[in-house]
């Protein structure tokens, strides 16, 4: 019987194993040293690797991202732990103009093995400064790998790939998934980027679900299965690179596509998937591609309002029914 561990434990295991294997890996962030990380992302690692490799920083994202970009250029493998991913916004200039472009500008002579991790998403009345997702912006920029695991197994396998690669990787952990438990093998494994997971096979409609939406769509699909409606669910797992082929194959089978994404719709991942399917799979479409997104608004603090801005079991069910009625 395979053991069950939480998402956070699985990701931390990947980090610990890779730090043991590769002494050039170090972690910087706020409260990631003795404290072990606000979300326990580095718990116990300080005791093993000490202050040189688990380095607490002042609250100055642009500074430590720039520093880690330099470290990555000169052969180290930094992991920047943003705690809340929202604060990556304070380091935009470094990330977009330096981190993402350095390999290109050096004709590949410099590598950029930096992992930028943080918690994303809406939940727990975190309010608008601690509920951001913002991954579409990074998908838009050439150079970044954008990784969004949705279960413990993927968290560990994708984190390993992130830590072993030579590109800047955004490793995004949705708050609502951190304590989710799942089977994770003891032995070493990794999951390549750009391979979507078919979470559930079905025939009548394809639902691409991002991040925390995967679990909600799975529940909806069970309800629909009781009514004899068969839904295929795809978890892209990495948004850059995006495994559009798996989505196209699924749409070829089902003819209908819904993209469920917690964050804002305009210029989002759903827009991109929709465009690509329209361009490459037009003749497979039996209905317009549909999107279900969170509302286009800053996230409210009030629990009742917060719940109202994100897709939920009911709106997901309704969207799938609407799609099937098209």
């Amino acid at each position, binding site marked *: 019987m395979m053991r069950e561990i939480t998402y956070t434990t699985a990701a931390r295991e990947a980090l610990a194993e890779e730090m043991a294997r590769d002494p050039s890996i170090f972690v910087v962030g706020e409260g990631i040293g003795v404290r072990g990380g606000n979300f326990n992302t580095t718990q116990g690692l300080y005791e093993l690797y000490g202050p040189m490799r688990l380095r607490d920083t002042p609250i100055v994202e642009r500074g430590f991202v720039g520093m880690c970009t330099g470290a990555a250029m000169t052969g180290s493998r930094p992991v920047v732990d943003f705690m809340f991913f929202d604060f990556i916004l304070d380091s935009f200039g470094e990330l977009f103009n330096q981190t993402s472009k350095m390999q290109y500008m050096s004709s590949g002579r410099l590598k950029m093995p930096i992992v930028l991790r943080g918690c994303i998403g809406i939940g727990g009345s975190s309010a608008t400064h601690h509920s951001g997702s913002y991954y579409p912006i990074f998908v838009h920029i050439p150079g970044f790998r954008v990784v969004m695991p949705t279960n413990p197994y993927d968290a560990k396998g994708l984190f390993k790939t992130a830590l072993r690669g030579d590109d800047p990787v955004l490793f995004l952990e949705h708050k609502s998934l951190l304590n989710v438990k799942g089977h994770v093998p003891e032995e070493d494994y990794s999951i390549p980027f750009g391979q979507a997971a078919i979470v559930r096979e079905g025939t009548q409609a394809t639902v691409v679900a991002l991040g925390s939406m995967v679990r909600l769509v799975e529940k909806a699909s069970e309800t629909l299965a009781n009514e004899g409606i068969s839904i295929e669910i795809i978890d892209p797992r990495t948004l850059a690179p995006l495994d559009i082929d798996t989505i196209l194959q699924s749409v070829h089978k089902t*003819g209908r596509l819904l993209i469920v994404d917690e964050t804002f719709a305009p210029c989002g991942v759903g827009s991109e998937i929709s465009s690509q399917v329209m361009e490459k799979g037009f*003749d497979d479409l*039996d*209905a317009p591609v549909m999107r279900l997104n969170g509302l286009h608004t800053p996230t409210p603090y009030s629990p009742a309002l917060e719940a109202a801005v994100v897709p939920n079991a009911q709106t997901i069910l309704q969207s799938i029914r609407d799609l099937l009625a098209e």
Partner: protein
Amino acid sequence: MVTEIVMPRLGWTMEEGVLVEWLKNDGDTVKVGDLIFTVESDKALNEVEAFENGILHIPPDAPPPGTTIPVGGLLAYLVQPGEALPSQKSTSLASPKMAEQPSAVATSAFQSASKSNGLPAISPRARRIAHELGIEWTALTGSGRSGRIVERDVRAALQSQPSAPISTPEPQLVEISPVARRAAEELGVDLASLSAKMSGKRITREDVERAAEFRAPVSTSADEKRIPVSRIRSVIAERMSASAHTTAPVTLTTEVDATELVKLRKQLKGDSSANTRPVPSYNDLLAKLCAVALEEHPMLNARLDGDEIVMSGAAHIGFAVDTERGLLVPVIRDVGSKSLRQIAAESSVLAENARSGTLKSDVASTFTITNLGMYEIDVFTPIINLPECAILGVGRIQAKQVVIDADAEKVAIRHMMFLSLTFDHRLVDGAPAARFLQRIKQFIEQPYLWLIG
């Protein structure tokens, strides 16, 4: 003015209402305040009055009494006497109003998914499958929202329609007869775009021929004339585009004080004892001084041959000559070893031969001079005459007031001229090319420097 009569919102929560009956008939004159129809909402039966004067016009395809209509759904029109109803209005009854009511359940008998071409709406997938199964879909009734034909409608039609698959299930293959395919090759018709236009029909030879006619109107319109491209023009076209596509041209320009050169030419011209012999032109003088400068800067006289650079031992200088038939470039061999007299004699013969069409092209030039000064051109960007490295564009000589000594605030009238050197950056960098041009400038300004030979 045509006024639309729509399903009114009678209370905030009302989304739809039932048109119970018309209280006026089609064609009746209606005044403001007249009751014109009754509506049943979920709360009550209401009589609705007119807000405008006019003649009631109930189109034949209007919703019949008893129909449930979303709020805002179009029911009829009020028109003024003598006013015609815009013809397209009747076809858009109710549907634009529906768009404003996306949450309203579509129950109107009016609504239709028909598109402007009169065909029913069909999803791309349903169209593809209909084509694969050989189902005639234009007469099908769609079960999708707003009446769109979807896959299941086509599959259902398979039961009732005799299936006649059109040979292949591959949708991307063009359906075409072998004869038509051959015709398309001969006539240069793009089958992909033709088949896209024909959406599912087999392409025949007639279709291809019609497409070819449509595409290439060989007959010329009244204000145009077609002339065949001459041999010389096609050679020029080929060489110019070859140059434009293969070289990395950069043009440098500089202004030169040509006063001394003008003086030199005037003296040569004024030498009465030499009046039977040709007087060196500016081009001859420039050829000679370029040859001396090229000796000092041999890379400007070189050519690229694969991965080797070929350095020429002598400067063979070409002159761009305008002829009736087009541009020609006669060449004076080994200009450096010849006297100005020899150059002048040769160049006048060559230019005459070029104009009369008796030019023999037996030698390739290593550098070209093109002079547009006589057309009052100052600066231009010559195109390199392949396989040469560079070409010198010569502008007009013009008397100008120039500053001679800024400190003494001294100006003078001088004969000024612009030079435009285009060079191939694949062979030579900017600085050496600039030094070469600077040397030419110096030679023009101080002719004794090169006249000593």
